[in-house]
Every structure is written in C-alpha cells, then in structure tokens.
C-alpha cells in the first residue's frame, strides 16, 4: 500500500512544485507588453518647442517613442543614450520624447542644460500614456515604418538592443 500513497502524494505535490517553479520565473510587478505586434495608437500632441506632432504623419520611417519625466532618475540616465542614438540615425529614425506627468517649467529647466536632438511633447492627463499601456517611466516603444509596435522596453533602454532593433528596421526599410 505504501507505493500507492507515494504515487498519490507525488501526483499532488509535483504539479504544485512545477507551478511554483514557473512562478519564480515571472516578475509579479511587471506589467505585460500587450501592444507588441499591434498598430501603435495614434496621437496628436503639443510639442514643447515647435508645432503639434502627429504619429500618423510619421509613417514611412521607424519611430522611437520614449515616455519620461524630469523627476525620474533612470530617465535622466538614459537621456544621453537616446540623444546619441538620435544623432547617429539622423533622419532615418524619428525619436520622440513624451513628457509624462510633469510641468512645463521643470521640463524647461531640465532641457536648458542638456542637448535635445528630437522633439518633446506634452501628454495632458496621460491620455497617450494610457493608450500605450504605460505603467511608469521610463518606457520606450520602437515602432516600425508601417506603424506597428515591434518592441516595448520598460526601464532604461539597453543600448545594444536599441541599436540592433533600429539597424534591422532601417535596413529592412531600405
């Protein structure tokens, strides 16, 4: 009879251990990326300096959309990376900074001493952030020339991944 008890115990315990093991691989606080492979939601936002920017008007070239804020330290850490990438790709890729839950005076003060190779836009009431499923900053979306979201990065962008993805998009386009 003992082997039957052992089999029954194993049948109950093993699946639970498997589920527990799978659970450890998953970050319970991570918000899922639901829009990868889907069309990027359109927006028309007031630029910090310049005309209103419409996403639909940018179809035809890859876009990097970066949600950030002046009060976000990781955003400050990736600012230089984004500026360098924008300078490198020039007109081949459009970079856009979406200012997330911040004030105009603070943004003006922040950008005064920092280079900015691409437009920054305001997102009132976080409409665009909610449309993109943003849970916090920094979050970046890489959109291909057809307007499809190919990658979402929550947290500081990885330079190698950014370069690899953009090179593929630019080469694929040309």
């Amino acid at each position: 009879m003992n082997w039957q008890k052992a089999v029954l115990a194993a049948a109950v315990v093993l699946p639970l251990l498997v589920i527990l093991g799978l659970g450890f691989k998953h970050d319970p606080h991570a918000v899922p990326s639901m829009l990868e492979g889907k069309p990027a939601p359109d927006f028309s936002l007031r630029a910090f300096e310049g005309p209103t920017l419409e996403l639909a008007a940018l179809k035809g070239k890859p876009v990097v959309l970066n949600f950030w804020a002046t009060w976000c330290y990781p955003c400050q850490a990736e600012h230089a990376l984004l500026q360098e990438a924008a300078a490198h790709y020039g007109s081949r890729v459009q970079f856009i900074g979406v200012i997330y839950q911040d004030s105009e005076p603070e943004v003006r003060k922040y950008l005064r001493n920092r280079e900015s190779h691409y437009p920054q836009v305001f997102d009132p009431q976080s409409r665009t952030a909610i449309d993109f499923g943003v849970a916090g900053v920094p979050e970046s979306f890489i959109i291909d020339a057809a307007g499809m979201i190919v990658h979402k990065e929550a947290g500081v962008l990885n330079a190698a991944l950014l370069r690899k993805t953009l090179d593929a998009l630019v080469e694929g386009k040309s």
Partner: protein
Amino acid sequence: MRMLLFIGALLMQSPIQEPAEPESAHAGVPIVETSDDPAFLIGKGLRCPVCQGMPIAESPSTMAQDMMKRVREMLAAGKSSAEINDYFVARYGQWVLLKPATEGFALWVWVLPPLALSLGVVLALMHVRRLMRARRGATPAGPANGDGDADAAPDRAATGRADGTADPYLKAIRDEVRQ
C-alpha cells in the same frame, strides 16, 4: 495644545506639484464619487499600475486619477463597463482586472482553490477513517454467551501469553463473573 499640533500639521504639508495640463480637464463630465457611481464601480475593478494592490478608484497616484478620468470620459461617450474593461485589458493585460476573468487560463484561478480544498477534505476524512478502523481492530471484543471455548479466543487475544495460550487465572475469573 491640540490646536497647536493641528496648526503644525497643516504647516508641514508639502505642496503637491501637479503636471501642467494645457487643456481643461474632462469638461462636462460630472464627478460623483459615491458607491453607486458607475465610474467608481468600474474603477474599483481596475488595478492601479503604480500602486498595484489598489484599484484606480482608491489609489492616490496621478496615473490612477488619469485612468479614472478616462473611465468617466468613456462612460460619457456611451461605452459600457465591459467595453471600458476591454480597453484597459487590451493595453495592460488581464493583470489590470482586480477580479480575474472567468474564461481561458484565468478560469483555473477560480477552479483550483475549491478543488484543492475538496481534495484535502476527502484525503483528511479517508485518513481519519483509516485511523478509526485501525483502533477498532486493536480493541478486543467483549464477552459473548457463556461458552468457555467461544470465550477462549477473545480471552487469548486479551490475555494471551507469549506462547499463545490463555491465562488460566484470568479465564477462571471471567467464567465466575459470567455465572
């Protein structure tokens, strides 16, 4: 003294910096935060992405408040609660619903706990029955009618010596009691 403490607490409040909102907020959408307000009820079922243990109807985060504004706008535009939930699920995943869906893989969240509890109760009952049966088997049977031979086996079980024979002394006492 209490008044001084109250005034001190008021003075220590740090000013809240609100993000610039060049457009006016949800003009024409009434804000009524009562327990029967439809937006509040929908907001109670949506998880705040910042304060992840709280619904957006109760979270103090700016993101939660902006999401509530979006809920109110969608209600004012005639969207149903199901459509509003679908909108947020399409962007944040099933995770955004505080109550898991009752379909697909999420159905297991509802099914597994009562299933596991029922299985546990069944196993516990089986174990208790087994213990009771074992205890009954170890307890000797009581005296039957006065047949000495019929009593010999139970006597041996109760008073058996190591060699398997009954204790004659105890057997004599039992026979006398029965008489």
